């Protein structure tokens, strides 16, 4: 073996492995053997409460710097003086001091530490670490918190619960995306700031396989693959943020890492759990719009202002064609229905000390608030088996989950927008016989678009095998093998029946968009772990390699000219086809990574992590890059002098980290010199053209992250405080660098010397307010104050980003006109003429920079509970500016309804009013000024909110301890109450084109036996 090593000695990394492997021959290092000649040997066995042997427990002689570690069977031996005290400690268990009292055999049972906040075990991906001893920044949400919420997307569980993690729902429609940003936006490219998702060790692609032309009703990037993970099956979600935690994920860690761990079975007799809950959802807020009387008064005043006394023949709302006494609340009509949801979860779990298992199944269904029976249905299953051989050397864990998700939505998103614009006296939607009412062709019936139908059929399989084999002594071999498969089939149909029958349009005008996508990926990650006690210093180390491949393909076709609307879903009934996309992608990735963690006396901790990555997304010269980080922690509360001086301080830690991670989210094949197929023909040949200027030398975005953090726990952690300051600088930005036209193209993908900086404060507080017998009241508060800044951008003024970015400002800004109020004489809006040329013109006068990032955000969490009763309430808050109702709004006084605010309009000379005079739109000056208004700073206003995000009440009728039968009733509320001054529908989505987030109330029961 040594020979073969020498052959490879030229690779410096092999030195590290050599160290590992050479330790195999060092007999004296085998765990449990004394490190010094024995004085008096103490031996024994360490078990948990269930009687299972505990491996890797630190056994330390209190008065000396001597330590040992328990072996696979939980045994240890250590030399110690008979009058000394042994201290047993291991992550996840309460430390146990045990006086020797002259005994030479001491068997101990260790108790799991659940309540002590410092003993939380955190999954850091390739390794675990205790909350107390971590050097990195890791946030965790467990099943306890996830279960309190009625949600279908796991990201929803994190909202308001984590510092540095900003999550917002993009729509109240089932299946909609959540946007997530961990410590701000790092990349100038939009869409380059997604975190890396890892489900049970398996990277999970969050990019949609959807076709934009099909999933029109969902804002954002199409239908989200994250919906295909059942939140009920999740044991914990950890978010890795700083360099120390993310550097081991190298090139993909720049935007943070989200680790999702599924549930596993527990030792004990077989347990069956059934959980059912049903709920009701409604939109949480609507806007106050003009009623018919106010609306018609506005219209008449508008025409009067424009000097028009004969209403135009097509002004049906006001010229008497439509009933001027009708009133319909279109918001209620279009998204005012109640959404019903049902969730049924059943699981069986159990096992003995060798084998544990968990099998669970879930059915989830939710209808929408739209005026048609749309439904989202999900069926999912999880099977998790863990086996450990009798000797304990080998353990295997196989987890497999499968989700099938069928989502039915309207094929068009316009209905929500119509709820604001439709005149309140517009006609009935349907005739008496239930057919669409076209009111003698005086309108385009807004619900006609509901004839368009969207259906997605998605399935996901995630399967993962973990192998853990204890080699000699402190050395273990681990491997992580995984496979995932995603399928998506979408169809969006547009039958000719959406058109007014007066046009006599038949199925030859019908069309359908079909999209099929598939993605498969696999991963193999062999690793060596070393866990070694060197006297008073504990060494944990690991080294591993990773191989990954992902392949995806997608075919999207628009079919039209059907022979019959009944066959609109069948391609053979169509006679014209246009392919939107036919693409196949392959992505390969390989890495070697390692970690060395030194823990001296449980006080001084050094954590070194590193990764060398190769990605097929870069050209041959630039495939590999190195990333690394160093993390330091000092548990000063463990120092004698501090413990003596500040006895109330139960935990005090100062930690700092610095390092780098990268970003390879630029899509595949971008470095290649390729030709693409054009759409134009010449001599019956479809042209091909050079896709881009190819730059084989572009490379990773690198993100240098630094953090300092202070953690304090008082009075046995009854009060815990933590504060962090981070500074992440993302440089080497991968953008299209603008080029002169002589190069043949406008830009080339290259690494630009632009730097984006994210800094911020993250503050957390946890308090055990009352702990009296079984009564517990805790409060948690978290607050994040982020700041994003473009530090440098060479030649910004000449670049295509000149009008979007400003050096020194955040990336997420908008340049708008400055509204100077309404001219009291003319009654029209006026604007600041920045360049003084007497005209308000694009670019030159759009000089007001508005920031759209949150100023701060956070959550306030309270838990009150006894052993039977528990009450949880979570408030979420965000201070931010956002697009309001006025962004790209139609003119006030035209044929669209308006918010009641417009009643405070200018009426006659001398009026000082916030809104300009009504105009029907036929006054070109008023029209033009209003268009400018819709692009002015008036369209970006306060969108802050405080939201009662989650309330959960549960009561246990039977606790399952004595007779094996447990029963719990629970009531949950989601998004119950919001305080906001936002001018618009929903300060969270800030989008008037989509359904606002829903207020959901659900009731359920959980039975265990």
């Amino acid at each position, binding site marked *: *073996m040594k020979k073969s090593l020498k052959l*490879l000695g030229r690779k410096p*990394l*092999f030195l590290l492995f050599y160290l590992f492997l050479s330790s195999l021959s060092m007999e004296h290092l*085998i765990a*449990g053997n004394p490190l010094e000649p024995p004085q008096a040997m103490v031996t024994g066995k360490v078990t948990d409460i269930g009687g299972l042997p505990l491996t890797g427990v630190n056994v330390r002689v209190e008065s000396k710097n001597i330590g040992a570690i328990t072996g696979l069977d939980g045994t240890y031996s250590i030399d110690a003086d008979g009058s000394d005290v042994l201290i047993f400690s291991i992550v996840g268990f309460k430390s146990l001091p045990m006086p020797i009292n002259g005994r030479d055999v001491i068997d101990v049972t260790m108790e799991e530490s659940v309540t002590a906040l410092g003993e939380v075990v955190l999954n850091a991906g390739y390794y675990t670490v205790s909350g107390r001893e971590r050097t990195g920044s890791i946030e965790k949400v467990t099943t306890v918190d996830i279960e309190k919420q009625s949600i279908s997307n796991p990201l929803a569980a994190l909202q308001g619960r984590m510092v540095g993690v900003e999550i917002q729902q993009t729509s109240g429609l089932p299946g909609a995306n959540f946007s997530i940003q961990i410590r701000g936006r790092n990349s100038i490219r939009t869409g380059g700031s997604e975190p890396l998702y890892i489900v049970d060790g398996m990277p999970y692609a969050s990019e949609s396989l959807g076709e934009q032309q099909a999933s029109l009703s969902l804002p954002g990037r199409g239908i989200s693959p994250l919906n295909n993970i059942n939140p009920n099956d999740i044991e914990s979600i950890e978010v890795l943020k700083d360099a120390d935690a993310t550097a081991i994920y190298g090139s993909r860690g720049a935007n943070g890492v989200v680790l999702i761990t599924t549930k596993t079975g527990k030792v004990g007799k077989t347990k069956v759990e059934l959980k059912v809950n049903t709920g009701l959802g409604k939109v949480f807020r609507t806007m106050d719009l003009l009623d018919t009387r106010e609306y018609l008064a506005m219209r008449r005043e508008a025409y009067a202002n424009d000097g028009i006394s004969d209403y135009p023949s097509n002004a049906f709302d006001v010229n008497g064609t439509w009933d001027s006494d009708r009133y319909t609340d279109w918001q209620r009509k279009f998204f005012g229905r109640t959404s019903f949801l049902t969730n049924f979860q059943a699981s069986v779990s159990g096992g003995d000390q060798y084998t544990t298992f968990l099998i669970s199944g879930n059915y989830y269904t939710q209808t929408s608030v739209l005026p048609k029976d749309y439904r989202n249905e999900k069926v999912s299953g999880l099977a998790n088996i863990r086996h450990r051989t009798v000797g304990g*050397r080998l353990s295997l864990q196989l987890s497999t989950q499968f989700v099938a998700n069928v989502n039915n939505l309207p094929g068009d998103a316009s209905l929500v927008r119509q709820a604001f614009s439709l005149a309140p006296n517009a006609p009935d939607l349907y005739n008496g016989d239930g057919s669409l009412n076209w009111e003698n062709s005086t309108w385009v019936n807004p619900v006609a678009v509901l004839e368009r139908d969207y259906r997605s059929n998605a399935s996901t399989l995630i399967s993962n095998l973990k192998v853990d*084999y204890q*080699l000699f002594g402190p050395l273990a*071999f681990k491997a992580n093998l995984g496979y995932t498969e995603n399928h998506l089939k979408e169809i969006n149909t547009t039958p000719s029946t959406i058109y007014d029958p007066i046009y006599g349009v038949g199925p030859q005008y019908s069309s359908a968009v079909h999209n099929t996508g598939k993605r498969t990926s696999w991963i*193999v990650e*062999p690793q060596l772990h070393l866990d070694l006690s060197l006297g008073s210093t504990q060494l944990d180390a690991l080294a591993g*390699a*990773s*191989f990954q491949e992902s392949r995806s393909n997608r075919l999207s076709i628009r079919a039209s000219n059907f022979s019959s609307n009944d066959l609109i879903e069948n391609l053979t009934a169509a006679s014209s086809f246009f392919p939107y*996309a036919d*693409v196949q992608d*392959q992505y*390969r990735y*390989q*890495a*070697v990574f390692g970690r060395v963690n030194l823990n001296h006396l449980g006080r001084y901790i050094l954590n070194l992590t590193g990764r060398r990555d*190769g*990605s*097929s997304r870069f050209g041959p010269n630039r*495939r590999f890059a190195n990333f690394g980080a160093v993390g330091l922690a000092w548990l000063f509360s463990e120092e004698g002098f501090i413990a003596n001086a500040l006895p109330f301080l139960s935990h005090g830690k100062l930690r700092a980290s610095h390092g780098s991670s990268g970003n390879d989210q630029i899509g*595949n*094949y971008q470095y*290649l010199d*390729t*030709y*693409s*197929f*054009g759409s*134009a*023909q*010449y*001599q019956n*040949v*479809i*042209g*091909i*053209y*050079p*896709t881009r*200027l*190819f*730059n084989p030398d572009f490379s990773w975005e690198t993100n240098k992250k630094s953090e300092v953090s202070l953690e304090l726990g008082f009075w046995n952690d009854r009060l815990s405080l933590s504060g962090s300051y981070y500074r992440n600088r993302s440089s080497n930005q991968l953008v299209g660098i*603008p*080029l*002169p*036209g*002589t*190069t*043949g*193209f*406008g830009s*080339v993908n290259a690494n630009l010397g632009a730097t984006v900086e994210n800094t911020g404060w993250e503050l957390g507080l946890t308090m055990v307010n009352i702990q009296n017998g079984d009564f517990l009241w805790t409060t948690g508060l978290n607050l994040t104050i982020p700041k994003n800044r473009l530090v440098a951008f060479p030649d910004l*003024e*000449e670049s295509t980003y000149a009008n979007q970015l400003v050096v020194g400002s955040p990336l997420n800004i908008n340049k708008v006109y400055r509204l100077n109020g309404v001219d009291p004489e003319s009654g029209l809006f006026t604007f600041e003429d920045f360049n003084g040329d007497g005209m308000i013109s694009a670019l030159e006068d759009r000089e007001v920079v508005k920031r759209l990032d949150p100023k701060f955000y956070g959550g306030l969490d309270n838990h009150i509970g006894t052993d039977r009763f528990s009450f949880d309430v979570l408030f979420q808050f965000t201070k931010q500016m956002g697009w309001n109702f006025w962004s790209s709004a139609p003119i006030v006084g035209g044929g669209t309804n308006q918010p009641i605010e417009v009643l405070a309009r200018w009426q006659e000379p001398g009026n000082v009013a916030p809104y300009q005079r009504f105009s029907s739109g036929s006054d070109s000056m008023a029209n033009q000024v209003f268009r400018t208004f819709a692009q002015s700073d008036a369209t970006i206003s306060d969108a802050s909110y405080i939201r009662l995000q989650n309330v959960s009440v549960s009561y246990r009728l039977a606790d399952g301890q004595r007779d094996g039968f447990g029963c719990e009733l629970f009531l949950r509320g989601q998004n119950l109450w919001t305080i906001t001054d936002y001018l618009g529908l929903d300060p969270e989505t800030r989008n008037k084109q989509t359904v606002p987030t829903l207020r959901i109330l659900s009731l359920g029961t959980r039975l265990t036996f």
Partner: protein
Amino acid sequence: MKFSYKELIMCRVLQLGLLAMLTCALSCEKYLEIDPPNHQLIGEVVFQDGSTVEAAFAHIYAEMRDYSPVSGDISGISYVMGLYADEYDHFSEYQQSARSFYDNAVLPSNTTVLSLWNSSYGLIYAVNRILEGVGSSTSLSQVEKDRFMGEAYFLRAFLHFHLVNLFGDVPYLDSTDYRVNQDVSRMDTESVYQRLVSDLTLANELMSTSADDALHFRPDPWVASALLARVYLYRGDWALALEESIGVIASSGRSLEAELGSVFKKGSAETLWQLDPGTQGYNTVEAYTLVILSSPPANIALAQPLLDSFEEGDQRLVDWVGSFSDGTDTWLFPNKYKLYNATAETEECSILFRLSELYLIAAESSAQLGELDQALGYLNAVRARASLPLLPDMGQEEVLDAIYHERRIELFSELGHRFMDLKRSGRADLEQGISKPGWDATDIVLPIPEQELIKNPNLLPQNDGF
């Protein structure tokens, strides 16, 4: 601790397996070599097969037809340079950048100027890619290579020809390397023409006439000669211009189309090169842009000075000029291309080179060389077709004036010929030149796009007057 034999074996196997994997991780860089994408072609692959090279050409021609200086839409030179000279009156309220051509008040920030520049260099890049790819291809036959290279050299010259005439000194690009092309300097007009001549000479040698291209959708050696003749004419190399033009007239197999109404039809006998509309039944963008169908005209109408310069009895005023009347006003428009809608079969295509220009080149160069009889012969051939009386013998200056006049009428609304002729002859500023109020002597070239000067300061200085 005791290990069983079985466990020891397992341990060794695992260790060896692990070692093998780690070795692989460090040495198998090949692992990252992935298959090429199926929705794009790798550049090298394109040049291994004649049919994919044809597809690369197809893109260039389609692009020339749809978005280039020679396309017939409102950003092509037929339109904007017609406005810039004195061919059209402008009516559209929306075409701000075309309006400034009409007013001779083109700014360096003008978007049409930018698109003339960018679309040309975009196509030059595509042509240079073909030259490099075909040149280094190992699988194409020599015959194929010659044909492709010849066509590409021709296209490179053709694209640069328009650039140098519009902008004056311009970079002549023969590389695809953006690191070179992003900071090129302008080349003096003389050198650009030398490169043009050398590319065209090469093209002429390498190109061949394809028998299946009866409709002349692809340039052939005669088109290269035709452009060469035009280049020599513009440069004042009269003997060479005469030689090339006579060669084309005598040997290209093309002849003047007898019927004026058929000159711009798809099967016209005098077409040297025309562009395929791409879709069956489509006709020209020129007709769609120029034919007036409503009042006031959506785009342009023929300007009075041009209409006034038609001689009495010129049949072209009947066959090539259309009129639209709304009852009170009447507007005349270019009607060389008549079909603004699709027809069952394509009937008209945008013509880039036709033989009557060669007659006029032959006439002009003969006249310059003092061969006045010969000059009148060629000139009268063109006049005769327009039912105009033959010109009698006259002095050299008069003959030349007659030829310039004839070019103005024969080639009106085609590819900016009027502007180019005024420019090369130095007559733009004279009375018979562009006597519009906005005209300035420095307007003889367009400004280099402002954005380009900012991105590449090596292109400085800006042309005079901007």
